[in-house]
């Protein structure tokens, strides 16, 4: 039998319910297996900012629900996630636990309520191993911007795990949790999924509630699963999705109705990565595509290249607005000086890390009068045009594919100038600008300096057509 912590959600759920006593595992055993590995590996990888103590009541309750199913005449009622240990990104609120967004600003802040996604997971009987490291306030692409040190890539500890959900992806890759939740603003689920060789889904904007999730860029942010398999991603997604009265940006099922269809044709916007993709990356990508058995055609998305500039303008603008709430008055880091202005200045200057300060300043710039038309309003218009081009493309093709990232994981410290790091996100940001769902699935390995490093293939589907992503994902996964 597989080591318990190495199981997928599906495998663990089956083992928890095995009929033969010799094959059956307990919730406690599964928890201990994950928790022990998490504690053993964390000093080296820095995946978790905190590993939680076992919640005895939750473990007992999950076991009870599973046991009752075995004797109940009506059969199964305990959800698949019952008794499954998950890792949670440190910007998602779990009542009573610290939630810091990997910032000094919130280093000692305790969540006063559960995020809706946490409530849903608790209802399903899921357990929480710990809170995972990330780029401060979800700003970055490498988890190097954490106030609590960088997370190491489990495949090569001299490399980054990607970001901003680097801790969540590394936790799943290193089998320190069965699966994890991340958040995605410009690729923050899919980039680390690609670098760590796991599956990552960014759902359609509005499908998953963000009540209780620390805001970075409100018009882009979505919560999503990071898992070992496509099927696990579907299970986790099905559990956390749904309209929520606590988040008025959530959408009802079927808002975009006509979007679920059979996948025959895959479109590839080749001009987007011509000249920037290594030969081995292109070879992996082409071979993964061939194995889908779909008809592959080249498509043009003319606004896709300038879209990266639009993405960062909107990102800076919304970050500076969202982070204005941290003023040292009501909660979070609070420093006191001579005057009230000093209180604000000291609290914000001490509380925010370098990249956060940089983006707040850039956001203040692109929103300032005299520049707002040239930058922010133009970016919003470019976003509309890009979405239109994607919608047009989906009239000709069923799904759109690119590599998730232009390269495998880079070395820690390699991209020290901020602009070079921003350019890494060129493929993933498109789905955040359009609000469409997208998934990263492992497409094999490429070699760098004698190390085999995982890389991912990226699919985008029309709004609310996550099902298509799971279908094509399953095919890619099986043929790998």
């Amino acid at each position, binding site marked *: 039998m597989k080591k318990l912590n190495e199981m997928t959600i599906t495998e663990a759920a089956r083992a928890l319910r095995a009929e033969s006593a010799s094959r059956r595992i307990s919730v406690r055993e599964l928890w201990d297996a994950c928790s022990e590995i998490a504690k053993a590996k964390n000093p080296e990888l820095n995946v978790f900012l905190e590993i939680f103590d076992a919640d005895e009541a939750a473990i007992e309750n999950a076991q009870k629900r599973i046991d009752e199913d075995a004797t109940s005449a009506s059969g199964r009622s305990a959800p698949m996630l019952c008794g499954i240990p998950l890792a949670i990104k440190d910007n998602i609120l779990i009542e009573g636990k610290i939630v810091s967004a990997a910032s000094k600003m919130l280093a000692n802040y305790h969540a006063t309520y559960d995020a809706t996604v946490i409530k849903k997971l608790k209802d399903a009987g899921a357990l929480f191993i710990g809170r995972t490291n990330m780029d401060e306030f979800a700003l970055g692409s490498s988890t190097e911007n954490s106030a609590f040190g960088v997370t190491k890539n489990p495949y090569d500890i001299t490399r980054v795990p990607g970001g901003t959900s680097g801790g969540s992806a590394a936790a799943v890759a290193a089998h320190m949790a069965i699966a994890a939740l991340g958040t995605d603003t410009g690729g923050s689920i899919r980039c680390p999924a690609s670098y760590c060789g796991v599956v990552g889904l960014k759902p359609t904007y509005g499908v998953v509630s963000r009540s209780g999730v620390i805001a970075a860029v409100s018009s882009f942010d979505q919560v999503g699963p990071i898992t070992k398999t496509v099927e696990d991603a579907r299970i986790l997604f099905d559990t956390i999705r749904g309209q929520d009265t606590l988040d008025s940006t959530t959408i009802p099922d079927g808002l975009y109705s006509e979007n679920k269809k059979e996948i025959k044709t895959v479109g590839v916007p080749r001009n987007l990565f011509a000249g920037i993709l290594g030969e081995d990356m292109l070879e992996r990508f082409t071979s993964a595509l061939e194995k889908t058995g779909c008809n592959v055609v080249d498509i043009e998305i003319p606004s896709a290249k300038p879209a990266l500039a639009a993405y960062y303008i909107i990102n800076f603008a919304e970050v500076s607005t969202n982070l204005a709430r941290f003023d040292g008055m009501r909660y979070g880091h609070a420093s006191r000086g001579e005057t009230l202005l000093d209180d604000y200045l000291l609290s914000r200057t001490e509380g925010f890390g370098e990249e956060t300060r940089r983006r707040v300043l850039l956001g203040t710039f692109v929103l300032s009068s005299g520049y707002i038309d040239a930058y922010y309003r133009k970016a919003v218009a*470019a976003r509309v045009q890009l979405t239109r081009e994607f919608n047009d493309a989906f009239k000709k093709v069923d799904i759109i594919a690119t590599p998730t990232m232009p390269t495998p994981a880079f070395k820690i410290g390699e991209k020290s100038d901020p602009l070079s790091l921003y350019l890494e996100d060129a493929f993933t940001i498109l789905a955040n600008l359009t609000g469409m769902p997208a998934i990263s699935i492992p497409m094999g390995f490429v070699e760098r300096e004698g190390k085999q490093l995982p890389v991912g293939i990226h699919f985008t589907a029309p709004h609310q057509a996550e099902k298509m992503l799971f279908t094509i994902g399953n095919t890619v996964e099986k043929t790998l």
Partner: protein
Amino acid sequence: MATKEEVKKLATLARIKIDDADLEKFTSEFDAILAYIGQLEKLELSDVKEEIPALHNVMREDGKPHAPSAYTEKIVTQFPASEKNALVVKQIISHEEIE
């Protein structure tokens, strides 16, 4: 192109302090970043009007409010300073005569 004075002004607006060493660094980085995002100016936009969002008028009926002070204690524990259930802040209105 960005000048140190401009960056300093932005910092004042954003309530952030930047020391001189950082100011130099931020200013040169801003030049590179602004040059990059400035390429958007060249993008031709064909009659893009404000898109009407698919989702609108999200309102709900008034529901039953939660019991008074149900969350007070939890929230007060997160205040930097408190007196009973009140948040302590600096006095901002002075009784002294302004000269």
